[in-house]
């Protein structure tokens, strides 16, 4: 004979019983081993469905695409209406001042090349980092008193990236932090400096580009200038940059 409570077992497992009904059900389950076993197996199936259901993950490129389309909506309508005109004006400026742009480009290339050299010489060194730790709470305080600024590091546990450590570095006569991360067999350097006008010129607006066959990403936030560089895939470099940006905003 089927117990009268059976039809309510799903409601119990789904948290849809309230107050009096819930108390009565709990009392019944203590008294009826058949229903208790049934409720347990329903709960077990619910947990299994929950785990099995979390199956598909979006591609990072797709995540970026959606984020960009929302970002575009933040721009005021006039900006979008005048976008073609602004683009034409920008093109005209580029035609009028090609020499200045070219010089800037050369300077940028040279400066970014210097950072690539720093990355390569770090990897070639027998002691690539001065503070060796995968713990952000060890690496960040190590820079205290060595740099005239501080920065945030993200929680890496759930990401494919591993923090190897950090070292003090100099670029264009200014001190900065160089952090080394690992993803798979690839190593990625993250340079952090105080943002200055000269560096802003090198800022490619958070764009991902290739320099000397390395994948790089650069942006400025909170008075600091970040430069991420490595031989890992563009998506890895981008994901690590996103992680760092999220730490900075938190």
């Amino acid at each position, binding site marked *: 004979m*089927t117990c009268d409570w059976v*039809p309510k077992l799903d409601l119990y497992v789904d948290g*849809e019983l309230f107050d009096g009904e819930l108390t009565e059900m709990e009392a019944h389950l203590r008294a009826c081993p058949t229903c208790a076993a*049934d409720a347990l197996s329903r709960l077990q*199936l619910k947990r299994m469905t929950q785990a099995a*259901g979390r199956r*598909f*993950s979006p591609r990072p490129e797709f995540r970026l695409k959606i984020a960009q389309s929302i970002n575009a909506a933040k721009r005021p*309508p006039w900006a979008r209406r005048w976008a073609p005109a602004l683009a034409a004006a920008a093109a005209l400026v580029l035609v009028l001042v090609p020499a200045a742009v070219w010089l800037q480009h050369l300077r940028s290339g040279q400066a970014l090349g210097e950072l690539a050299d720093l990355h390569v010489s770090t990897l070639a060194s027998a002691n690539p980092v001065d503070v060796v730790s995968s713990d952000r709470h060890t690496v960040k305080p190590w820079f205290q008193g060595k740099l005239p600024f501080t920065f945030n590091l993200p929680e890496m546990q759930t990401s494919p990236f591993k923090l190897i450590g950090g070292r003090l570095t100099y670029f264009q006569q200014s001190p900065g932090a160089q952090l080394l991360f690992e993803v798979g067999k690839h190593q990625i350097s993250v340079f952090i400096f105080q943002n200055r006008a000269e560096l802003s010129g090198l800022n490619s607006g958070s764009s991902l580009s290739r320099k000397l066959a390395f994948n790089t990403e650069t942006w400025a936030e909170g008075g600091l200038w970040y430069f991420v560089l490595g031989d890992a895939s563009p998506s890895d470099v981008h994901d690590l940059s996103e992680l760092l940006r999220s730490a900075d905003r938190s």
Partner: protein
Amino acid sequence: MSRDRRTDAESFEAQAIPMFASLYNFAHWLTRNREEAEDLVQETYLKALKGFVSFQQGTNFRAWMYRILRNTFLTSRSGLSVKMTVPLDREEDAVGLAADTPEAVLLARADQQMVQGALERLPVQFREVILLCDMEEMSYQEIAGIVGIPIGTVMSRLSRARKSIRELLAEKVRGASK
């Protein structure tokens, strides 16, 4: 005017971005195809962003997003074919059916892949309800609002979905132990 628009987009972003991965996962379960799932999620975000001005703050944003996604799915290629297939049995018949398999034994032997296989074989009307309930942990009331069916039908579809999964798992476990 532009400031309002910006604030709206920012508020939308703050609420909609955290649920991106879950929405995508749900869309992929509905369409069972990456490309279609991406199209579906993209269209959902565009529609939601456009309609966000009419969304009443303080009401259930998550349920609102899932409703848009599901309605968009119904007008999509694979969604239209789903509309044509109506389950033959009366849904109400399934409420409260007792399990007739020694479940603890059965479930202990079933693995995640088997459950995924069973979910795949469920008709989409059942799959969506069980995923919203068990995976997204939504209430019957929320599911009823998203799918546009009475709560009684939510319960019967859930019950039927679970019964089918149990049967499919039993079939698999028995097949595997032969």
